């Protein structure tokens, strides 16, 4: 009896320690959002750190005004969404949630939509396509180890053929990256570059060079960054393409993507990262995979 009560108490305590996360998804023309949402859900839940719910918007063409997730019920909101701009009421809900200390994680194509929502552009700091140009802010990239804010006119967003690329850490002491190899190889992904936006209260964590572009054009571009929005924290990762033709999610199987996502999620919620550096993390010239979206036995 005593053992049972103790066991129940421990289980209850464990459950309380998990962070409640909400994945916002449901529209994304060029991506298989069901597959990517399933992968994100598995990555978070199988880490033992998060409990995950999913809020699915109406499909394209239906009334987006009916979509109003209860952000306030969660410690973390994950944007895996590339569709119609939300209603003013839903926009205000997320703005208040973030201003009051909420946590937002933005994945890959979620930097594309809702360019006509200025506060979303501030939360993501940089975006691509959807009509974005010099009016939303500068291009931001690295040159000679300095950040360049490039206000020249031009559209935001470019991607070439999917390919593997090296990720180079810039903020090596940031909790999300601390202890990880500072250069590592990411598996084949759709690399977004020529990003631009308000770029306010932003810290670039890591960069990459798009070497599929002609020599001299490819530049060192942000691939992961954080943003302070009000009292809230935002973590953005450009990695994580999941195509809809065919429906494959090999980019998300990369250990580097999964580990940085998990660490980014924890940092967005708490401002700290308690996760140990896993032994299966990729390094320069070495790609590793977590095909079941969980740490393998040899990770510890």
């Amino acid at each position, binding site marked *: 009896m005593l053992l049972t009560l103790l066991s129940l108490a421990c289980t209850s305590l464990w459950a309380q320690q998990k962070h409640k996360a909400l994945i916002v998804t449901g529209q994304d023309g060029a991506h298989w959002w069901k597959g990517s949402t399933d992968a994100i859900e598995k990555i978070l839940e199988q880490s033992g750190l998060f409990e995950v719910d999913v809020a699915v918007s109406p499909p394209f063409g239906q009334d987006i005004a009916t979509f109003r997730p209860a952000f306030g019920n969660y410690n973390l909101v994950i944007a895996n969404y590339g569709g119609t701009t939300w209603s003013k009421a839903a926009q205000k809900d997320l703005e208040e949630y973030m201003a009051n200390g909420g946590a937002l994680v933005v994945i890959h194509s979620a930097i594309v939509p809702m360019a006509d929502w200025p506060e979303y552009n501030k939360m993501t700091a940089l975006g691509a396509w959807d009509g974005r140009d010099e009016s939303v802010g500068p291009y931001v990239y690295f040159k000679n180890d300095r950040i360049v804010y490039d206000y020249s006119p031009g559209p935001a967003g470019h991607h070439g*053929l*999917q390919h593997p690329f090296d990720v180079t850490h810039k903020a090596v002491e940031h909790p999300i990256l601390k202890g990880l190899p500072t250069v590592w190889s990411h*598996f*084949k992904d*759709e690399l977004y570059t020529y990003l631009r936006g308000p770029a306010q209260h932003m810290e670039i964590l890591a960069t990459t060079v798009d070497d599929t572009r002609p020599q001299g054009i490819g530049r060192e571009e942000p691939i992961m960054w954080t943003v302070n929005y009000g009292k809230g924290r935002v973590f953005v990762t450009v990695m994580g393409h999941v*195509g809809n*033709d*065919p429906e*494959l999610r*090999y980019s998300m199987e990369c250990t580097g993507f999964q580990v940085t996502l998990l660490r980014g999620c924890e940092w967005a919620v708490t401002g700290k990262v308690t996760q140990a550096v896993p032994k299966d993390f990729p390094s320069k010239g070495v790609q590793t995979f977590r095909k079941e979206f969980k740490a393998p036995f040899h990770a510890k």
Partner: protein
Amino acid sequence: MNYKQILYLVLFLLLAKASQGQFITTEPTGWDRFPPEVQKPGFGLHKSLRVQMDDSAELEDVLLFTADNGHYPYFDIFKCYYVIIGYYSKEIKHVSDITVSDQRELLLEDRNNDGKYELYRRYMKDGQFSVDKNGNNLKTKWQFDRVEWK
């Protein structure tokens, strides 16, 4: 200005117009690299080369247009077609059929040394292929063409 001077001016203008006429050999095209009617929906220009493709005196621009047809972990599939345009005449000499391949190749060589280049291409029979559930182990029946113009 007297009548003689006016006459000289008119003669000069007529001569100037005739001289200008000697240098206009084609109508303005209104396009840059290729006429818009050769671009099929969803395709983009991937590569072009300028070589001798036929018996005409002019060189030809050979353009490769491609579109994505699926991305897999270790390869990609593309739809491709080729267009040949006379470099000076701007005449559209050929628009090929669409083929499906894992490469975006524009392979032009004069292997038979007749002074004219041939187009070599490799593509999947009927555009058909299969992969396993992880997107690996591509299986298809490859076809090889050598295309030559007279």
